[in-house]
């Protein structure tokens, strides 16, 4: 059955729901009406969407830190430390990747082993395992909004469990979970699953509890922005159709201030346009910028410096949320103290840069924004055209022929023809644009930028340069000449 961008009927939703909640025994604990009532008892200060809408209004920039550990007591302790010592505004709780891939038994064994040995054998918080009552205790331990984090082709049970337990936002999206977090699952399947996720959020929304998806179009590993923007727009349109009214769009900082800040401005602009064009006029968009997402320097102080630079770009880009990784990112799942310390550093950068309303060279910013918008539109327009107006039908076809594509994808169905590389200033450009429907202006722009680096080094920029670029920052520089 072809998936189209149509609101799930109550019957279809109800049918899936039964299936979802029976995937693991704790699913039975979720009762939608009770969950809505529970969520209504929470103060607005704990609702993610409300806080982001407020931030957008007041110009505030909130910090978010993501953590995930297998023990619920320890996870609670983490959140408390982040709130108190890290002045953290928003909490992300990462779900372990065994749970995400439905390996509930293996996850349970790893939890048991973690408890027994006191060491950790699981890379996140297994929300499904703990269930509603226990997880509500966790979310009740802090006074600010929480997001349930992770990306997986089938995130439905995790989301049910999370939203019923006091989380009011969730990461993940259909295209990224297809292209970056699965291997053989077809796009139709992940999109169908995400229709469910968005529909669930939409139903909470209708019941008076705004729930927010944080939509990412891929990962920020040497990936040109428009590739990510286009996939983000696709998911935003899917979410809107299912009744989601508040969305956060993610930009992955990749090291060049102008490019990163421009991305934070271009993405909501172009997304807004498409929402409007397709008749979704009551959606509130916010932007979240992540920390550096490539390989980190091992040294924690170098890592912290790189994180701070990402925050600078994010404040220049006037986002609502700044995601702050930790100084131990290269090394391990971070300790809570290191996490809180990194957050404090991030916060003072937010304050210092925000206070001075820093602006970068306007010409450079304008060009960068203009190009990102043009590239994104070239892709999304083509997708809509291929779907005869239906973004999902279009996306499926576009993916087959590489009109939607990803760099370093994990899924075999992704064309994987696009290759990104840094230009002389460290901005990520298309070394190979694969089958993206770009006109000559766009292609020449990228070619030109890459050739600047070539002239500078007196040598060709090729896949070996891409390999060098993958180690950017971790080796101490952004661009190796």
């Amino acid at each position, binding site marked *: 059955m072809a998936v189209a961008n149509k609101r799930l009927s109550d019957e279809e939703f109800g049918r899936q729901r039964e299936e979802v909640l029976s995937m693991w025994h704790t699913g039975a604990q979720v009762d939608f009406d009770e969950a809505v009532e529970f969520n209504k008892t929470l103060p607005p200060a704990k609702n993610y969407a409300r806080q982001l809408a407020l931030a957008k209004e007041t110009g505030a920039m909130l910090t978010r830190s993501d953590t995930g550990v297998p023990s619920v007591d320890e996870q609670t302790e983490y959140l408390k430390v982040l709130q108190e010592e890290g002045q953290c505004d928003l909490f992300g709780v990462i779900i372990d*990747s065994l749970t*995400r891939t439905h390996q509930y038994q293996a996850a349970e*064994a790893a939890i048991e082993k973690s408890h027994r040995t006191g060491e950790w054998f*699981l890379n996140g918080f297994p929300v499904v395992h703990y269930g509603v009552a226990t997880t509500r205790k966790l979310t009740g331990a802090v006074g600010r909004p929480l997001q349930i984090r992770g990306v997986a082709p089938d995130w439905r049970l995790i989301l049910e469990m999370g939203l019923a337990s006091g989380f009011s936002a969730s990461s993940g999206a259909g295209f990224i979970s297809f292209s970056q977090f699965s291997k053989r699952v077809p796009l139709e399947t992940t999109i169908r699953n995400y229709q469910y996720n968005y529909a669930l959020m939409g139903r909470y929304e209708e019941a008076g509890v705004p729930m927010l998806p944080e939509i990412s179009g891929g990962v920020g590993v040497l990936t040109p922005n428009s590739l990510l923007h286009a996939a983000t727009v696709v998911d935003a349109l899917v979410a809107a159709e299912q009744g989601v009214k508040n969305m956060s769009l993610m930009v992955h900082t990749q090291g060049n201030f102008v490019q990163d800040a421009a991305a934070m401005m271009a993405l909501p602009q172009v997304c807004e346009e498409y929402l409007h064009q397709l008749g979704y006029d009551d959606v509130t968009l916010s932007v979240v910028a992540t920390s550096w997402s490539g390989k980190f320097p091992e040294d924690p102080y170098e890592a912290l410096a790189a994180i701070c630079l990402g925050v600078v770009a994010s404040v220049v880009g006037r986002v609502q949320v700044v995601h702050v990784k930790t100084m131990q990112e290269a090394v391990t*799942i971070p300790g809570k103290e290191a996490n809180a310390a990194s957050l404090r550093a991030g916060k003072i950068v937010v304050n210092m840069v925000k206070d001075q309303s820093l602006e970068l060279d306007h010409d450079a910013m304008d060009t960068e924004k203009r190009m990102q918008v043009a590239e994104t539109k070239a892709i999304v327009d083509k997708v809509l055209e291929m779907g005869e107006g239906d973004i999902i039908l279009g996306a499926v076809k576009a993916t087959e022929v590489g009109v939607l594509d990803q760099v370093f994808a*994990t899924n075999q169905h992704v064309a994987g023809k696009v290759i990104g590389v840094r230009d002389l200033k460290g901005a990520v450009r298309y070394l190979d644009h694969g089958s993206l429907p770009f006109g000559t202006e766009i292609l020449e722009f990228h070619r030109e930028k890459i050739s600047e680096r070539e002239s500078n080094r007196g040598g060709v920029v090729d896949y070996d340069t891409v390999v060098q670029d*993958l180690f950017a920052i971790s080796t101490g520089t952004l661009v190796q000449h």
Partner: protein
Amino acid sequence: MSGSEAPKGTLVTGLIGEDVHIAGIRILEHALRKAGFDVVALGAQVSQDEFVSAAVESRADAILVSSLSGHADALLPGLREKCDEAGLQGIRLYLGGQLMIGDSRWEDVEAKFKEAGVDAVYPPDVQVAQVVADLEADFAG
């Protein structure tokens, strides 16, 4: 496998378990191919069985397992035994990435996986060129 045109050896590569950290292994594959190896790239999320059957099919000389999510401890043990069962006695097993969660000492990590039958274990800061050089040395002649 000594002629200058013949492949230096056949290698099966992939990320074990649910792992999706694909960038590192992709560039290793590129470098190894460039250096003259035949590479059978299984990509992300490869099970032990998939590693083994790909190695049998391709008559591989070695399996390169990458693992970054921190679950190598749960996902790797047993692979050597499966190889033996499938008739791949003595096939070289290489392992690299960010193997364990928590800051264990590298010596302990290395010892743990060697005990599980891995021939060579690599930390995340290894240079691509180093991996290639080691493999060339291991398959020289």
